[in-house]
């Protein structure tokens, strides 16, 4: 694995301890910038505020609408988009390398001011309402909400990942403009603890990683300190099986989720290996059995969902109702076997080889490295994490994986949600 030349800095505690990483990627046609802002949702109102703030960060205070914002960025030679998630807002920009500092300064200013033209707010609110009304009928939305509720507990901030149309429908634009600039929005999206990561041809822009990182730190330290998010309450998982009401569709959905160790936890590499052996790649047990041998599913996916302060192991598959019981039995039997016996040495070796080498492929472009790297840094790690994890993974034994699986994947901690396409007798 080749992590290109890079340099990491952190702003002062008084400036919010923002992590800044600059990576030199000679030949990159654009610089990829990721500014990841911690976000907190505590109820319907803050969910809406966090989401809308995240969306509006793509707009300059003077922009009349999203189209004007796009044109503004194109005139500067790039583009900028934002993605609000349950624990963060990611600002992703693709810009000329010599435009990175100005772009960061611009976005930081937007985060601090949180003021936008009323017509821009009104336009975005209309667009979001339309979008959320369109996706409200997607069965995946209800599955995701049910999984989150049982994984975290109904009142937990991480259970507020789904934005419902009702959260937006009654918002008045004037009140919203005021709320966006107020303390509730400041507590919903913050620069405190944020991550800025840039990957680009820095030499072509007359800079280098250390110089660029220093200039970005200077930008971030210029303004008043941001407020930290309130402490995250403990999760209150509610393990067990939940069958959602039938929802017409071509296939039923199955999700099995367990609390999982975060990247810094000593159990993380073994849990990652267990997930890989279970369903993390084509060569995994469930893909070989359910897809290649039985032809019951198009594919099984299994991987970590890593949030700012916690993680889950998520197994997902789609299959028809008539096969769901058999598939569920196979999934749980496979999990039970992993908990009891662990993987075979050959399985472990294959899964480890895949997961450690796949990181090389997974970060083989500036954009991919920027996205993956910024998430890693936000989670409290650095770009050397992949190499460290690879070394630890290579030292794992089957017994190590079984022990970790017994702690994190046993039946008592599993959350299972099934969304069938028709009502049956179950």
């Amino acid at each position, binding site marked *: *694995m*080749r992590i*290109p030349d890079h340099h990491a800095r952190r702003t002062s505690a008084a400036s919010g301890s923002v992590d800044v990483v600059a990576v030199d990627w*000679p*030949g990159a*046609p*654009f610089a990829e910038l990721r500014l990841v802002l911690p976000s907190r949702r505590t109820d319907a109102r803050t969910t809406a505020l966090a989401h809308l703030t995240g969306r509006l960060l793509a707009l300059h205070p003077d922009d009349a*609408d*999203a*189209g004007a914002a*796009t*044109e503004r960025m*194109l*005139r500067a*030679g*790039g*583009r900028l988009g934002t993605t609000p998630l349950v624990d963060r807002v990611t600002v992703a920009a*693709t810009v000329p390398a010599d435009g990175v500092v100005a772009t960061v300064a611009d976005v930081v200013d937007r985060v601090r001011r949180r003021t936008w033209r009323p017509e821009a707010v009104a336009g975005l609110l209309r667009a979001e309402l339309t979008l959320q009304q*369109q*996706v409200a*009928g*997607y069965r995946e939305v209800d599955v995701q909400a049910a999984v989150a509720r049982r994984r975290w507990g109904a009142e937990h901030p991480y259970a507020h990942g789904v934005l419902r149309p009702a959260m937006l429908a009654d918002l008045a634009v004037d009140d919203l403009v005021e709320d966006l600039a107020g303390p509730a929005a400041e507590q919903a999206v913050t620069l405190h603890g944020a991550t800025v990561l840039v990957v680009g041809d820095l030499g072509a822009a007359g800079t280098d990683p250390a110089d660029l990182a220093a200039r970005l730190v200077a930008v971030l330290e210029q303004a008043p300190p941001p407020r930290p998010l309130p402490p995250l309450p403990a999760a209150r998982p509610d393990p067990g099986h939940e069958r959602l009401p039938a929802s*017409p*569709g*071509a*296939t039923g959905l199955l999700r099995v989720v367990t609390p999982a160790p975060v990247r810094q936890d000593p159990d993380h590499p073994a849990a990652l290996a267990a997930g890989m052996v279970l369903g993390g*790649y*084509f*060569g995994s047990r469930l893909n*070989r059995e359910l*897809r*290649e*041998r*039985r*032809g*019951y*599913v*198009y*594919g099984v996916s299994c991987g970590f969902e890593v949030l700012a302060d916690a993680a889950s192991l998520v197994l997902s598959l*789609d*299959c*028809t109702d008539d096969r769901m019981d058999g598939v569920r039995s196979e999934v749980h039997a496979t999990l039970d076997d992993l908990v009891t016996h662990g993987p075979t040495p050959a399985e472990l070796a*294959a899964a480890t*080889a*895949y*997961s*450690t*080498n*796949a*990181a*090389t*492929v997974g*970060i*083989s*472009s500036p*954009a*991919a*490295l920027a996205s993956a790297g910024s998430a890693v840094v936000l989670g409290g790690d650095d770009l050397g994490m992949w190499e460290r994890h690879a070394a630890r993974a290579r030292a794992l034994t089957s017994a190590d994986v079984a022990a970790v699986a017994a702690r994190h994947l046993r039946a008592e901690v599993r959350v299972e949600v099934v969304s069938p396409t028709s009502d049956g007798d179950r």
Partner: protein
Amino acid sequence: MSPAGAGATLETLPNGLRLLLAPATTAGTTAVAVHAGVGFRGEPADSSGLAHLFEHLMFAGSAGVEPGGHFAAVEAVGGAVGGHTRHDYTELFEVVPAHAVDEVVRLEVDRLAGPRLDPATLATQVEVIRAEIAQQVDGVPYGGFPWRHLPPAMFDTSPHVRDGYGDVAALRRVGVDDAAAFFDHWWAPGNLVVTVEGDLDHLDVGRTRELLSALPARAVPPATPLAEPALAADRHLEVAAANVPAPVWAAGFRLPDPALSPRLHGACTALAGLLPAQEPALRVSARSGWYGVPLDARDPDVLVLSTHPRPGVDGAPLLAAMRDLLAAWAPGAATPALLGTARTRLALGEYARGERLAHRARRLGAATLLLGSTDVLASADPTTCLDRDLLGEAAAYLLDQHAGTVLVTPGPAGSPATTPGGDS
């Protein structure tokens, strides 16, 4: 940015197989892509879906690779694997750390010599395809739009109106002999392009050439005739689909043949990149090529405009609105302000497409197979086709033809409320 094919070398081996080597600066990865000159427009009419079934079978074992072994071998080095069946080709590809490229070449040669074909594997892969259709198309909101619904509005002949997946019941009747005959006919070395792209420092070029040359030469099948007269009038269809939460509509126009008019094709692709931003309130999406990738099919290929209409609005006024958008670019019209940022907009769009797995290898291989050269990727590059007069010519080309449209509305699956209509 340099042209997509810059630095690439193409050679034809004695058995007719074309080998394309395309070095590039990467983070230590290499892509290998195989393109076979058979897609769902070329498969037998009574076995629609066979080309796609074969894509699956190519991963299900070969003489020296156990079933599942291809995935296992590539994944053992952390590689990623993919395959697609498109209108006129089937592609298989891998991206691996550069040190593993020779092993991938060996795997490719093994399956190109002949996949394992047995009744159990055929039956299992047909079931996987059934699950794929359910999960990836029928089970996804708007899945299959527009490529599943629009072709019957634009074309009449069999090759053009297939959806690629075919009829699962018919696929269940495909026997080992049928599959073997299909492979012998279509997967002949002379109908293949193998592309190795990226970090080639670890590639044993001589050994690669030797292994690929050892595949026995077979007769190269003639390309399936695709010519069909243009529509004599606009044609509007309506269909119902269970996986459409709200009405959605698309119009299809024919693109100019890139082999004959690459720059006009590039200008049409440029318009596809610009029209959605022209009137944001119309919420228009546009794509050059059925899957949004230009130069991805032989002629005739399509430019598709789509939007979510208000309930009750049908095809004719929607098509008129699309023509109004195009008319803003026609000769004599004022230059749209969008042209000022068009080059950056289009360059960013292509840059984003470059994030697709093995994107450059796949584009190079497909262009070589479909158009005989990678040169067209540069000559039809939309960022170089932004001359105002050329864009006017492209708008006129699209305005001068009749279009097919389809309105897809929510409804029970399999209730095609087709109401052909027409106006000129």
